[in-house]
């Protein structure tokens, strides 16, 4: 309502007065409608000032905020590098033409793109430009006093009046005491008492907006100084927190390897249970990684169970359980019958919900064929924890637990290509430089193995045994996120501020008591809030009732219009 321009009509004075009464009831900036600046008259400074004023206006803040919400949308429709690199890559492979356009607009990295950043940076500049002056203004308001009573209280949104035999001074004193007792900031102002309450609303609003900046800072700190890496560990194996031991490692731009928390842990056992009956048979029920860990370089060993929602906390690092799978244990013998691979667990990657898994077994060193010549062996491995039974369709797992494990292998020999210097996927066999082992019919040598069974390679080339012992693996994400605490603090502060800002009403109450023309005191009370709330009239009624007890209505013979008497 502070926007009513009072110029022509007969109500001018009233409205202007109302304007003054409501002035500074909040620190919301006044909207200047976009009067285009007088072009020639504006110098560089003038332009800058104009731009700044526009940027920090509510209208532009609103538009920027709206733009930000729209700009966030593409990131949910186009696969994002930071969310799922694999999915993004396969999208690019499938849509090469479209991807080029997408790349140009940074649609695979929306949240770190130039345009997204531009919007939120502008928004936050606007926010700072808005908060600073509003905070000063608010401090000023805290020091100041509520404005005096407008001449015509009848114009205010809630109004009440009555006549009383009590003295005007007495009424004003009583009103002052009553308002102060109800935690209004109240002051006598001429023939009236002026009071205000609900300053916390403004404080809440400022806290909320400042907290938004804190959250942004926390985000920035988090993405600059974080570290995040993945590690797959087979039961019985361990890990210590240094960069070379990670399978993949993604540090923030300003991350320093020195900042890695020193600790180590070993996966003792992985435990997975699954629904056995009902329509959701096979749905995971529990995943538990039993680990032994030690803090520092060689701290005492401690035991802990890591679950999906319960990471292991070591200092500032958290170890999350991300995925699991099977690692069949195999023994490989060479042409001489010498064991070259002694009970090695080979982790395989799950390809469906029932943990049908694929992978490769690569025997790089120590293998000699029956002639004693150095060679390398490679096996394509296909594993199902629960086999349907021979002759029952394709070999896919029927259940995620290891009820009826079967390992199918096909065998190759030759160069694994690991010395070529090119990075190799450990779960895939590159057969381009390898020869197939042949079975009796001259086909690729393949066999399904039950635990304990052995695949003999032809012509005494050796053998591979699927050991009875079956291991599981678990993969972990180990992350350090330095901004986390700050973000939580910001979020809580924002919430508290918001509650204050939205639930507290800031309002003013005036009580005027003057002697009317007939010598009887006329009491007038009026209230003004920032928004028209039903609570304001209720509160005024309550205040009026309290005051009325102390200054009851004078018995009137004729019901004159007392409001008239009050006007001067």
């Amino acid at each position, binding site marked *: 309502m502070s926007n009513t321009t009072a110029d022509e009509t007969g*109500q001018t004075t009233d409205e202007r007065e109302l304007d003054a009464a409501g002035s500074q009831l909040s620190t919301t900036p006044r909207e200047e*409608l976009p009067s285009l600046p007088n072009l020639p008259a504006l110098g560089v400074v003038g332009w800058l000032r104009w731009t700044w004023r526009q940027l920090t206006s509510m209208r532009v803040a609103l538009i920027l905020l709206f733009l930000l*919400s*729209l700009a966030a949308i593409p990131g949910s429709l186009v696969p994002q590098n930071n*969310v799922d690199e694999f999915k993004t890559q396969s999208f690019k492979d499938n849509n090469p033409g479209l991807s080029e356009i997408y790349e140009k607009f940074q649609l695979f990295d929306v949240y770190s793109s130039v345009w997204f950043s531009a919007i939120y940076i502008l928004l936050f500049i606007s926010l700072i430009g808005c908060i600073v002056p509003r905070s000063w203004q608010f401090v000023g308001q805290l020091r100041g006093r509520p404005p005096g009573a407008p001449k015509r209280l009848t114009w205010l949104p809630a*109004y009440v009046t009555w006549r009383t035999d009590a003295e005007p001074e007495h009424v004003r004193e009583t009103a002052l005491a009553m308002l102060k007792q109800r935690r209004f900031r109240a002051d006598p102002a001429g023939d009236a008492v002026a009071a205000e309450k609900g300053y916390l609303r403004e404080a809440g609003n400022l806290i909320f907006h400042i907290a938004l900046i804190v959250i942004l800072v926390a985000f920035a700190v988090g993405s600059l100084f974080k570290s995040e890496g993945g590690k797959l560990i087979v039961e019985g194996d361990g890990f210590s927190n240094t960069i070379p031991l990670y399978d993949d490692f993604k540090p923030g731009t300003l991350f320093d390897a020195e900042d890695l928390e020193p600790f180590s842990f070993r996966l003792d056992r992985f435990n997975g249970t699954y629904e056995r009956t009902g329509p959701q048979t096979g749905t995971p029920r529990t995943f538990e990684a039993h680990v032994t860990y030690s803090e520092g370089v060689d701290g005492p060993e401690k035991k802990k169970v890591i679950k999906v929602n319960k990471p292991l906390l070591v200092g500032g690092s958290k170890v999350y359980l991300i995925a699991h799978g099977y690692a069949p244990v195999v023994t490989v013998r060479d042409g001489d019958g010498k064991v070259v691979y002694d009970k090695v667990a080979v982790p395989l990657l799950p390809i469906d919900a029932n943990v049908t898994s694929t992978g490769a077994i690569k025997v790089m060193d120590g293998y000699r064929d029956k002639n004693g010549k150095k060679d390398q062996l490679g096996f394509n491995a296909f594993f199902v924890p629960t086999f349907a039974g021979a002759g029952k369709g394709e070999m896919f797992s029927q259940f995620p637990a290891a009820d009826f494990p079967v390992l199918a292998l096909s065998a190759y020999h030759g160069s694994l290509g690991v010395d070529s210097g090119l990075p190799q996927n450990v779960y895939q066999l590159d057969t381009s430089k390898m020869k197939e082992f042949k079975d009796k019919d001259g086909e690729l040598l393949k066999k399904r193995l039950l635990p304990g069974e052995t695949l003999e390679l032809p012509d005494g080339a050796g053998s591979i045994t699927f050991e009875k012992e079956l291991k599981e693996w678990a993969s972990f994400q180990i992350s350090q996120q330095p901004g986390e605490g700050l973000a939580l603090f910001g979020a809580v502060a924002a919430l508290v501020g918001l509650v204050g800002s*939205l639930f507290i009403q800031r309002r003013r109450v005036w009580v005027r008591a003057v002697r009317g023309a007939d010598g009887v005191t006329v009491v007038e009370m009026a209230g003004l809030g920032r928004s028209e709330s039903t609570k304001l009239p209720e509160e005024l009624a309550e205040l009026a009732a309290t005051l009325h007890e102390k200054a009851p209505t004078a018995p009137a013979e004729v019901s004159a219009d007392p409001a008239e008497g009050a006007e001067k």
Partner: protein
Amino acid sequence: MNLAAATNENLAMISDVLIKSAMAVYTLAFFAHIAEWTFGSRSKVGRTAAALTSEGAAAAGAAAPAVRVKQSGGGTAVLERPQVVTRSAAGSRDVADGPGAHGGTEKGDLYGRIAVSLTALGFLVAASGVVTRALSVQRAPWGNMYEFSITFSTVAVGVYLALLLAKKNVRWMGLVLVTTVLLDLGIATTWLYTASDQLVPALDSYWLYIHVSTAIFCGAVFYMGAVGTLLYLFRDAYEAKLGRGGEPGAFARSVLSRLPSAATLDKFAYRVNAAVFPLWTFTIIAGAIWAGEAWGRYWNWDPKEVWSFVTWAVYACYLHARATAGWKGRKAAYLGLFAFVTWLWNYYGVNMVLSGLHSYA
């Protein structure tokens, strides 16, 4: 063990029957509301409401404040509380609220009351359905979209009934509410139905209970805000037409004239949205904490997170618009509606169309 499993299956069946029965009761409530609106349209009040409201406007503008001091007979004056006179802010229309769906007719009102009673009964049945479902799975009933939907509509009706109990003016919403509740339950039982079962490990966290329960509640309340906003837009156009001296169409004369005034609807929508906005903020924070525990990153921009953020930002826009000159009123209302659309999309669209870590439908 087996015995327990059997009881659970029985409970799940009972729950299904209860939900279907609730739909039957809501359908009766729907027809009662239709009867209320039909009888209301025959009322004189309905037809002359337009005239009344414009007269009312003139009267309110000129009303002079007065003290009413009643004196009872017999000399001693019994003094009543002085009366508070309220006026609207300068510039806003002074239009009285419409009489409600029943249009002031006794028959309409009777059917309206029947409708509300049936809605309350439907609520009790549906709530028992939700509770038995929870008992059958021995956890909170929010593990999949079917459970989410039945809880959502039950909470929406619960909030509506609570507001009625608190003597708030929300009966005008009855027909729209019951219709959408039927729609929601229909979709839930036909397309989203999932047999009862336990949760996958990623969903098994007490943050789930906090995050999902507040999300459902926020959705139900945002929904009421959206209904208020939509009706505000219609009613505002109607009042504007009256104000220009135009002749509203038959629909407006019969239906819109019975609704509360545009100012009342707008205020209702604002209050409702503003009141749950902090809770929605909390929901997102709780979700971030949960994500931090489950996936190691508290904010990862997965589709559900993106759309929660979008919803939050658009509601913040709406609240801002209400405080910005030139954006109050209709423009703010469009933002408010858009905000609810983003919420709906986050619920249906993201779960079914976009898949992310959240997809558990």
